[in-house]
């Protein structure tokens, strides 16, 4: 079997969901015959006629339509062409989808797929990481898969969940990551909502998610040359956030670096630190640290972009400083 990319895993998860559950349909711009801007729905319109539909450029109405269909028992998947454009559907996501079950008792099982994060040359409006904004709202599940296997199984989990799910799939990982095979069933390795200890270690904990997991792993590898053994925790879902696994890791290492590709202000890394500081202060041997993107819009030029977001060398530097505290 040829290697499966992260992007192909997303396509295969949708194919399987369409096949196994007749209440699933996909709605988004250019996703029909064209197969999507990134080809995440390639051939699906042909294979499932009438269930993979092109939408007008109307993010608000796309999400509104999904909500109305979910009320009637469907399980819609909305593809945003880029995570950045989900701001145009923000009202429907946070005010209608997120509140529906609490207000009325009617569940809202929609999945909004957000092609997220930066790639070289994408600039301010095709690079954003929106997870913290959506995680802020009670009622929304926010997933940030970092591996090919998770992209597949977590998307299937997202479709099966009765809550609205913001599925932050990372564009930088679309083609970079490959796996030989996919798990048969979701939850085989880890249940929904559980973080993964991707790399066990004893000297410091890096909590990361999505593309940052791979930068953190490379930084951990680099620090082996300095004689340090770094633990890397992959959050997998940022809401619910698996505080137990984070605290258990910090209990082992005594040191925490939280890394996010998004901006620091009110972000997921800030939330991780807040939780460890309030619930596990006594476990810490040093002040917890965070590393995020620089606080400007995401720049266009690769030279600027490559420095704007945390990378393995920057994470390694932060870790060295943390280990000296």
């Amino acid at each position, binding site marked *: 079997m040829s290697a499966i990319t992260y992007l192909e895993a997303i396509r295969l998860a949708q194919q399987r969901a369409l096949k196994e559950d007749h*209440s699933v349909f996909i709605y988004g711009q250019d996703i029909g015959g064209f197969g999507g801007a990134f080809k995440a729905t390639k051939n699906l319109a042909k294979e499932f006629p009438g269930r993979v539909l092109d939408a007008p450029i*109307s993010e608000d109405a796309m999400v509104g339509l999904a909500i109305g269909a979910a*009320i009637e028992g*469907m399980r819609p998947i909305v593809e945003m062409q880029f995570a950045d454009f989900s701001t145009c559907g923000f009202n429907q996501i946070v005010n209608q989808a997120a509140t529906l079950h609490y207000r009325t*008792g009617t*569940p809202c099982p929609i999945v909004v797929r957000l092609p997220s994060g930066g790639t070289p040359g994408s600039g301010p409006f095709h690079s954003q990481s929106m997870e913290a904004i959506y995680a802020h709202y*009670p009622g929304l599940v926010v997933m940030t898969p970092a591996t090919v296997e998770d992209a597949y199984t977590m998307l299937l989990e997202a479709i099966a969940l*009765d809550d609205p799910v913001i599925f932050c799939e990372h564009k930088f990982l679309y083609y970079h990551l490959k796996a030989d095979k996919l798990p048969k069933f979701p939850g085989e390795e880890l249940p929904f909502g559980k973080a993964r200890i991707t790399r066990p270690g004893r000297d410091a904990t890096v909590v990361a998610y999505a593309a940052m997991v791979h930068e953190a792993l490379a930084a951990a590898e680099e620090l082996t040359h300095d004689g340090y053994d770094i633990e890397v925790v992959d959050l997998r879902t940022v809401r*619910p956030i698996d505080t*137990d696994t984070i605290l258990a890791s910090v209990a082992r290492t005594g040191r925490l670096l939280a890394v996010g590709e998004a901006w620091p202000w009110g972000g997921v890394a800030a939330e991780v630190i807040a939780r460890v500081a309030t619930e596990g202060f006594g476990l810490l041997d040093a002040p917890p640290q965070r590393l995020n993107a620089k606080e400007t819009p995401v720049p266009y030029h690769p030279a600027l972009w490559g420095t704007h977001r945390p990378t393995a060398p920057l994470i390694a530097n932060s870790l060295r400083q943390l280990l000296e505290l």
Partner: protein
Amino acid sequence: MTKAKAPEPKGSRKKSSEECQAGDVSKEVARRAYRSMLEARLLEEKLAALYRSGKIVGGVFLGRGQEALSVALGVQLRRGDIYAPLIRDQAGRLAFGDTILDTLRTYLGSSLGSMRGRDGNIHRGRPSEGYHAMISHLGAMVSTVCGSLMAKRFRGEKGTVGATCIGEGGTSTGSFHEGINLAAVEKLPLVVVVANNQYSYSTPNDRQFACSDLLSKAAGYGVVGRRAIGNDLIDCLAVIGGAVAAARRDEGPQLVVADLLRLVGHGEHDDASYIPDALKKSPLGRDCLELARQALVDKGWLTLDEASSWQEAVEKEVEETSSKVLREPVPDPTEEDWNAFASLGRSLQQGANQ
């Protein structure tokens, strides 16, 4: 003192003969419509009294003056249809199947109401029964109704109509535009009724839109446009009935625009002093409930005796229901599960702290 000239309502025109065919109005539907209008009017008077006496918190938003238009939609929908009423649709809601009891429970925050104190006043519904619960963000419900209609299309159900209402102010939102455009692209059986009540809260139409006729939007979207006389029950029933029937025959989205005047403030906190007296005294300001009663009496479809016995019966029901609901339990914060998720149980929340 010079007599003020009644301002010409903006954003509308007189009816023209070439406009779409209206439906027939039956005695039975007109009587049911009038009954719901009466219920809405008397219930809302009670709501206003409860608000003034401090029993209702937040706000009270009344549909006085808009009952004919509102009821004409609600009464012509049926079980299986989708209905997303808006702020001034008490009459339509009651005609669709909402109750005086649940309205009072929602306004008074009873834990036995459909919203269980989690939301209030006009934000109520039973979405799983096709009765959508509006959010405050205008225009948002248009695409939601479209989605429910899409679900029915996926399941192969035919003959279902989805309907929603909005004010002229709501037509300025992006959501309204996106929703109607989407409905037109998908050729959905959607009816959108625009109540052009001349003021969006306090903002007059000349600060709201610049087109000379809101109905001209229908052509722009590629949907059927129809005009109703907003305070004339029989005309509203005929025009909206025609729209609902056309949608049910799968003739695509229908946009109904009606001129009227709200005979109250935006909410009970608002005295509507910005509405000129001359406009209130113009034909637009005539009370649709009185006009409807007269129209039904003139047609021989209702006697004045019946009208007054209905009034007594409704007043009694409203009073009794209100007394009952005032004795009902309010939500207990210590028993509230404080969980916004449908699928995340307490165990996962405790383990993962959300």
